[in-house]
């Protein structure tokens, strides 16, 4: 027995008009200052006003949002008591909004306690709408939230199925403002979700098709979206792929690349998409034979030839490195600009954090602590995994 959960997805141009059809009185908009400056928040408010819904704005979500930020938002929500919570932004904003929504519904549960084993129950006070402005995390479709525990210098994964947004509005217009670097990072995030979800130990029939399709879209459209941000077709396809991969992976989970990326991000504040994309080819090499048939399936789906007698894992890893290079993404931790000394001094923490990450449980070949340390060292140097 297993579940497959997904929100109502409204996609394509003008999907934002779905807001004008909502019923309610007050919306609490969760966002960041950049979204306000870009005019996205005004667009949302305009649609809400057409529905006769007033809105109040909380724009204090920072990148890699902390539990404290979620608590601040919850305090504001409790003051105004909205019937809709609308997140407008990237993964950080949407994750923070999920935490606020959960805290509003269940003030008896601390955000850090929200876990997949204990249902929170359905939302009765305010429904949650997520409007992504990046094409990456798929957070508009997932129940997970990654929040920073500041005191411990680590990111924690929280959530349960009840944290799934009620509505995801996937409107490509909101992705047009992404600069090329952000397009690349977030695109690599989509690819990592899709590849890891397709090959995790919890993979399932319901997720598989979505994830394979997302992989195909990324290979076809990410380079176009990166080169020309005004390429509407590429933008729309990548925006769809992010949501599709989100729905897919949240029902099958991710793997080692995510465990290591959460760890690296917690210590060195590397953007999530960049970090997972960096670890992905190394993860494929490390898992290797444990998922050989699936690497071959992916290679086939993206029309990459695997010659008879050759392994698919290194070919796929190399293909992903080529894509990453084409969109200007780093191939090693060293390329991120992290000095060797800082890396060495933090290595024990990096290994510890990764070993505690939930995603390691669903990795087809999970490393022990010694292998994890070696893995990090290889990724630092950009050396293909050979153990």
């Amino acid at each position: 027995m297993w579940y497959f959960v997904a929100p109502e997805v409204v996609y394509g141009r003008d999907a934002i008009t779905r807001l004008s059809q909502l019923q309610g009185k007050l919306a609490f908009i969760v966002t960041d200052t950049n979204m306000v400056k870009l005019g996205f928040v005004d667009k949302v408010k305009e649609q809400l006003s057409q529905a006769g819904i007033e809105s109040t704005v909380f724009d204090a979500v920072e990148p890699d949002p902390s539990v404290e930020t979620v608590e601040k938002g919850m305090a504001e929500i409790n003051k105004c008591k909205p019937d809709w919570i609308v997140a407008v932004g990237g993964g950080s904003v949407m994750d923070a909004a999920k935490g606020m929504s959960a805290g509003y519904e269940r003030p008896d549960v601390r955000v850090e306690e929200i876990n997949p084993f204990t249902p929170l129950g359905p939302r009765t006070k305010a429904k949650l709408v997520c409007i992504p402005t990046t094409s990456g995390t798929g957070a508009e479709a997932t129940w997970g939230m990654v929040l920073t525990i500041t005191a411990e210098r680590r990111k924690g994964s929280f959530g349960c199925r009840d944290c799934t947004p009620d509505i995801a509005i996937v409107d490509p217009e909101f992705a047009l403002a992404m600069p090329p670097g952000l397009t690349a990072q977030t695109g690599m995030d989509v690819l990592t979700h899709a590849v890891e979800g397709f090959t995790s130990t919890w993979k399932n029939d319901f997720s598989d098709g979505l994830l394979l399709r997302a992989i195909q879209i990324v290979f076809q459209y990410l380079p176009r979206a990166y080169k020309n941000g005004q390429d509407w077709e590429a933008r729309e396809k990548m925006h769809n792929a992010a949501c599709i991969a989100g729905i897919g992976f949240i029902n099958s989970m991710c793997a080692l690349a995510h465990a290591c990326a959460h760890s690296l991000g917690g210590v060195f504040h590397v953007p999530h998409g960049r970090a997972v994309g960096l670890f992905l080819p190394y993860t494929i090499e490390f898992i290797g034979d444990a998922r050989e048939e699936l690497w071959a399936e992916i290679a086939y789906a993206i029309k990459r030839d695997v010659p008879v007698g050759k392994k698919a894992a290194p070919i796929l890893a190399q293909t992903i490195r080529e894509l990453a290079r084409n969109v200007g993404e780093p191939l090693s931790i060293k390329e991120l600009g992290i000095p060797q000394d800082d890396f060495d001094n933090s290595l024990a923490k990096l290994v510890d954090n990764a070993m505690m990450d939930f995603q390691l449980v669903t990795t087809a070949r999970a490393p022990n602590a010694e292998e994890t340390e070696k893995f990090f060292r290889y990724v630092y140097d950009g050396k293909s995994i050979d153990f």
Partner: protein
Amino acid sequence: MAIRYGTEEWVKAACEATNKSQAYKEAAKNWEGDMYFIVEPEGTLKEKIIMYFDLYHGECRAASVVKDEAEKTPAYRFWAPLGIWRQILEKKLDPVQAMMTGKLNLKGDMAQIMRMPKAAVELVNCMLTFETEFPE
């Protein structure tokens, strides 16, 4: 030779296997908290089985079968019918998925459990290192 599930001999064997496992030691190095594994009656099993494990920083410090739940006050309680425990120990059911679908119930500090899911998996792996005979 197979050891009958839920007996004093079985919990001692599980404890011993846990202490031999490097993988468990690593995964649970920060784990603090004793626990009950409660097997609810099903089929020919007419009475509840309560197994107590004191797990601390990757080691099993004590293990025993307990007659009455009130005998100890462990930090964690896991409970499920016999069939679910059997599926988990036969690797037919992922223990984390069992918890997520409500087949295996638990009570305790969820924040700590969320930080060490691999410890749960490794603990099950320890219990697979010896042969178990289940009540039919």
